[in-house]
């Protein structure tokens, strides 16, 4: 019961922070960046599992590597994002499968929140809260930068600084997200809650609150269902949010 409660707490915070951050990624059509980043964490997860570390701790250096790669490739080449995704995806999965003990493949691919301990939970809660607080403070400026770098610059906003912050927050949420939903499903964790919230929102507040609530709520329902059915929580969390998205579809504007 103790672990179940810890996994619920972790899920609420990670899911909520991912949904909130997703509202920014969606506005820039960058939600899918979380996909290749998630895949790239697989070798890190593999190492963490082998060495008995917290999955997020193993994933983090790799996701930072991914952010730097994306940033460099975006600056240096005009390669389409799809090609980059394929490259990064394949490399991440390939390396992971060289390292990964087969019996732990499922944990790496779709996550295993049921194994969190007190330290892991504390880490997730603190990092998620840091993301949420940072976002609350910087949200108007980040939204403005997403809408138009020129408008933001005319407002005296240092766009580069906020772009960097944005990528850093993505790195943190991906590292946290892989614990709950694994390397394969992180993109959905940030993309689906804001998509559903957008369908039913008429203003920014509803959108941000809605995405946060749907992210946290999906995590709770998914983890509870996992406890009842014995299926892994990661896929269930994603499926719950997908179901919520379907329910909001008739209201899409």
């Amino acid at each position, binding site marked *: 019961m103790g672990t179940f409660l810890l996994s619920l707490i972790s899920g609420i915070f990670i899911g909520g922070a991912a949904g909130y951050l997703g509202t920014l990624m969606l506005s820039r059509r960058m939600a899918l960046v979380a996909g290749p980043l998630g895949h790239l964490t697989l070798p890190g997860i593999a190492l963490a599992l082998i060495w008995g570390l917290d999955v997020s701790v193993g994933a983090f250096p790799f996701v930072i590597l991914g952010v730097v790669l994306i940033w460099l490739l975006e600056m240096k080449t005009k390669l389409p994002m799809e090609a980059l995704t394929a490259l990064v995806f394949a490399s991440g999965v390939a390396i992971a499968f060289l390292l990964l003990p087969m019996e732990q493949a499922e944990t790496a691919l779709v996550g295993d929140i049921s194994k969190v301990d007190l330290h892991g939970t504390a880490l997730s809660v603190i990092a998620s809260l840091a993301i949420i607080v940072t976002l609350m403070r910087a949200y108007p400026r980040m939204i403005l930068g997403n*809408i138009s770098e020129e408008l933001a610059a*005319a407002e005296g906003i240092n766009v580069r600084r906020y772009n960097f912050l944005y990528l850093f927050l993505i790195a943190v949420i991906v590292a946290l997200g892989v614990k709950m939903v694994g390397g394969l499903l992180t993109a959905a964790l940030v993309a689906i809650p804001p998509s559903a919230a957008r369908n039913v929102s008429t203003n920014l507040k509803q959108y941000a609150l809605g995405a946060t609530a749907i992210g946290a709520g999906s995590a709770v329902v998914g983890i509870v269902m996992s406890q009842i059915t014995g299926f892994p929580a990661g896929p269930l969390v994603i499926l719950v949010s997908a179901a919520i998205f379907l329910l909001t579809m008739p209201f899409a504007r």
Partner: protein
Amino acid sequence: MAQDDEQVLQVSDLNVTLEGQAVLENLTFTVRQGEVMTILGPNGAGKTMLLRALLGTLPYEGRILWKKGMRIGYVPQRLPYIKNIPLSVTDFFALRRNGGADVDEMLHAVGLGAEAGKKRISDFSSGQFQRILIAWALAKDPDVLLFDEPTTGIDIGGEETVYGLLARLQRERNLTMLIVTHDLAVVHRLSSMVLCLNRQLVCTGPPLGTLTPENLRRLYGTEVKFYEHKHG
């Protein structure tokens, strides 16, 4: 170089290179207080790039010197990403650093009713959206307005056109304006100075003496038929 008090902007030897290609070459010009300068040129002439360089979002060589303390408002051509976000007009104004000035008052200044504040940005027509962008730029009480290709004359039913609106705002607020446009009629109706741009400076001066058939040929590469609009 001593700076004249009346000068709002001084650009010298401005060069912008993107991916190895020169986008702007050796631009030198000044803009004075209260002047309305139109930037005229064919597609791909670097007009938008010039505005971006002036805003400081593009790396450049040379010198761009704004008078100290100038507040610069920018009205972009379009904002493709804005419709991805559920954003009401009030939300949009709240994104500004110092929050909204009086949103209703700003909307009123550009000919929109106060009820517009609650509506979602994506529900407006492109002409109305442009007014919202103008109102947004005005909200910080700018000294200078940079305006990228306002859509022309699409308003219906006796409403003030965007250009009428700009002319009125210029009178009422003594704004300095830089307006990128394709529309020669606008250049004559609105501007006191014109800057003809095709990567390099082709010609500059008051529109009447500057936009000669010869200069327009140099600017656009072909004969441009031009009729001066007469308005009563």
